């Protein structure tokens, strides 16, 4: 395999022409921080897009930014912070979780994997914020979809397909996305000692309240103990957390209301801005499970099912877990995983409602089992056709999501 550093969009066209003419395959990466996510890719040439970098348009009053795909999130955040703005979907940094360094994640990788953090439950996903994409399809053709405006229903919304396709449909070289004002004030209210079932109900109440809770998570005592916020890790108790944001007077008012709601159930505490940031980074970046190589699963499910699903799994195999998205997201680290990394147990526990993704797993495991949720047959048939519509020769990231992406696989062309 040869490595090719891309610094201009034209090089992408050239590489695609080369691959199409010679029946070669291409693997894509930004900084590589998410390369260990999904099925391992083997390709004839490896394209490094981290050199395609820089913000090309930013209009704070129009809430829009455009940047090249290799631009690092840390740089985007810095630029936005100068105008008191943010990426509202709270993109996580899985670098350390996957055994790499922090701070490397790029825009292209974040949108291609559709990764969102704790605020997703209120603000929407990465995909929801993607307004436009330019790049190239696997047909070797320049490709453009969406625009720079918020409201656009002109033609199919192909941004949605590009987001979450892990580079298997098109190479995104430039992305345009929505940005939002950063809140003036951020607080987090913690409740100590809640049991799992009660915590799920309380998070439902918080997220269904008028108080505009922007994130809700639950950390069992063993997970909370790993936080670097003294009062939390020393409590020795499970922690339920709700995030409140807004202009000063509003955030104070809402924090007080949430303190009253949770205070009726036990001991509460309030985190200031700095500790709130640290807390939600810990949750979003899956920091509790950093430092081991054990399989980590991410389950998206109807939030009311969270307690039952956790119990169904932990009855069968030992695991550490915590909840985000008000229970709609379960993070699991399999501490003594069966041979399949826990895939069968985890997926059976969902009983058809939701999906489970292996976020961390040894290369050998990711090759052997399905890291992404297997799809129902009629949907798989559509996926094959969509793959063939964008990348008929299967040259882009072959096999990254499903075996069907791989060369030579893939049914009715």
């Amino acid at each position, binding site marked *: 395999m040869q490595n090719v550093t891309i610094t201009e969009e034209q090089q992408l066209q*050239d590489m695609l022409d080369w691959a199409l003419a010679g029946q070669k395959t291409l693997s894509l990466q930004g900084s590589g921080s998410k390369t260990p996510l999904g099925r391992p890719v083997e390709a004839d040439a490896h394209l490094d897009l981290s050199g395609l970098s820089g913000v090309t348009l930013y209009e704070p009053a129009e809430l829009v930014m455009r940047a090249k795909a290799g631009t690092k999130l840390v740089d985007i955040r810095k630029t936005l912070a100068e105008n008191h703005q943010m990426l509202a979907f709270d993109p996580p940094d899985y670098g350390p979780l996957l055994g790499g360094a922090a701070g490397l994640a790029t825009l292209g990788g974040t949108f291609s994997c559709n990764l969102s953090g704790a605020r997703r439950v209120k603000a929407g996903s990465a995909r929801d914020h993607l307004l436009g994409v330019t790049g190239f399809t696997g047909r070797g053709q320049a490709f453009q979809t969406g625009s720079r*405006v918020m*409201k*656009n229903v002109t033609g199919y919304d192909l941004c*949605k397909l590009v987001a979450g396709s892990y580079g298997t449909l098109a190479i995104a070289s430039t992305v345009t996305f929505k940005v939002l004002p950063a809140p003036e004030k951020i607080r987090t209210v913690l409740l100590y000692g809640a049991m799992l079932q009660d915590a799920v109900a309380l998070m439902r109440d918080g997220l269904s309240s008028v108080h505009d809770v922007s994130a809700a998570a639950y950390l069992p005592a063993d997970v909370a103990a790993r936080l670097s916020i003294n009062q939390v890790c020393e409590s020795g108790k499970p922690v339920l957390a709700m995030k409140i944001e807004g202009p000063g007077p509003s955030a104070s008012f809402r924090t007080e209301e949430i303190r009253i709601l949770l205070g009726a159930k036990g001991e509460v505490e309030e985190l200031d801005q700095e500790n709130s940031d640290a807390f939600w980074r810990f949750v979003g970046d899956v920091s509790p499970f950093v430092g081991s190589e054990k399989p980590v699963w991410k389950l*998206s499910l109807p939030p009311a099912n969270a307690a039952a699903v956790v119990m169904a799994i932990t009855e069968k195999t030992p695991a550490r877990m915590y909840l985000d998205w008000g229970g709609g997201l379960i993070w699991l680290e399999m501490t003594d995983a069966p041979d399949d990394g826990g895939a069968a147990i985890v997926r059976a526990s969902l009983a058809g409602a939701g999906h489970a993704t292996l976020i961390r797993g040894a290369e050998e495991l990711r090759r052997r089992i399905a890291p992404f949720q297997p799809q129902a047959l009629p949907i798989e048939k559509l996926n094959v056709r969509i793959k063939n519509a*964008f990348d008929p020769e299967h040259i882009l990231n072959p096999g990254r999501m499903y075996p069907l992406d791989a060369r030579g696989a893939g049914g009715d062309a």
Partner: protein
Amino acid sequence: MQMPKPNEDVIRKRGKLVAALRHILADPAAVIDDEAALRAFECDALSAYRQLPMIAVLPSTVGEISEILKLCASEGVNVVPRGAGTSLSGGALPLADGVLLGLGKFNKILEIDYDNRCVVTQPGVTNLAITDAVKADGFYYAPDPSSQIACTIGGNVAENSGGVHCLKYGLTTHNVLGVEMVTMEGEVIRLGGKHLDAEGYDLLGVITGSEGLLGVITEVTVRILRSPEHVSAQLIGFPSSEQAGDCVGKIIAAGIIPAGMEMMDRYAIQAAEEFCHAGYPLDVEALLIVELDGPEVEIAHYQAKIDRIAEECGAVVSRTSASEQERMIFWAGRKAAFPAVGRISPDYMCMDGTIPRGALPKVLARMSELSKQYGLRVANVFHAGDGNLHPLILFDANNPGELEKCEAFGADILKLCVEVGGVLTGEHGVGIEKRDLMGEMFSEDDLKQQQRLKCAFDPDGRLNPGKVFPILHRCAELGQMHVHNGELPFPDIPRF
């Protein structure tokens, strides 16, 4: 505007098709072939274009829909799905050789699930009925297109409908969690559910806004939100549209995302005021309605900031609603702007481009030049927060040539939107209305790529043909690959 030429072979077998459809549907009256009865379906809200369908069917079950689609697929018959027929872009315009598939009988809410903060509903339920079903418990469904009393949730998904509150709460696509749909091949599939961000290619995301070209939606799961504790609206009047536009930009730049931010120009203000006496100031060139929601302390905090910004921008009038009743009156004028304009002109055509907000002065100036050039008046209402323009072009269809003149004027406005970096349609859809302008925004290759997606769902192009795409390519032709002679792996690229 031309539709694909009807297939005479299909029309000739109409009788056979009616019999086969009556065999599928439990209720024989649900297959309509009588001309007078078919008349009810001849157009949607873009009533300048009319066409009787060959046959209309009103199924009651998903199984029936699946069988109807299988029959049409095997007989080579086109199908046009229809909700309440409120499309402003002709999305539900029937075809002379097509079956019109009405979803009006799918009118039940199936489940209200507060534990998961969502509602599961059949597609024929109206947008407002969802909010009505959960209102007593303090919840609502956020997207609120102005036709919400009549438009259905299935149609909202097909068109990715917006509304005045989508600045803060998003479009339909941001509020739908799952759908069940039937493909043209008759397969029933479920996309998403009560969980977030379903894995694999985002089929739910592309179905939303696909204008009935990819599948027939038979069930929708939407998220519901807690109704805000307080809501307040403010009217702010300016001596010029530029100042009003400037104020909108400054409010957002100050970190405030109002629940809604609407703008009307002098002509629209006057028409609305005459129609429903909302108390709008008549001596201003532009009027903003800014709505805030949340706790009282937050509203007061933002209102003070907005007052300062408005004053800096040269506002001459500012009034805040003192009661819920007054807030509703403020909105009544805006919501009635279309019929109000309809009263002062025999006909009008509503455009729907979106522009980067900064381009507003340029677009308004150019629009008034065009108005003079075409000799047709324009009233402007504008979802100012997100740059979505609704110029209403006034004309009289009884004057020979005036409809064509109005269409040409409208096309010029939309081309202008694209020229300044915007888009042809913000919320009404392409349908037939903007179909022939798609080339202004997309290259031939991009349009072909979009049609390849269509081919993945509907390889024979049976669902709603003639809408959205100006040229229909055969899927086999779109599938071909043209490989360049790229033998050279470009020696000048650095490798390591």
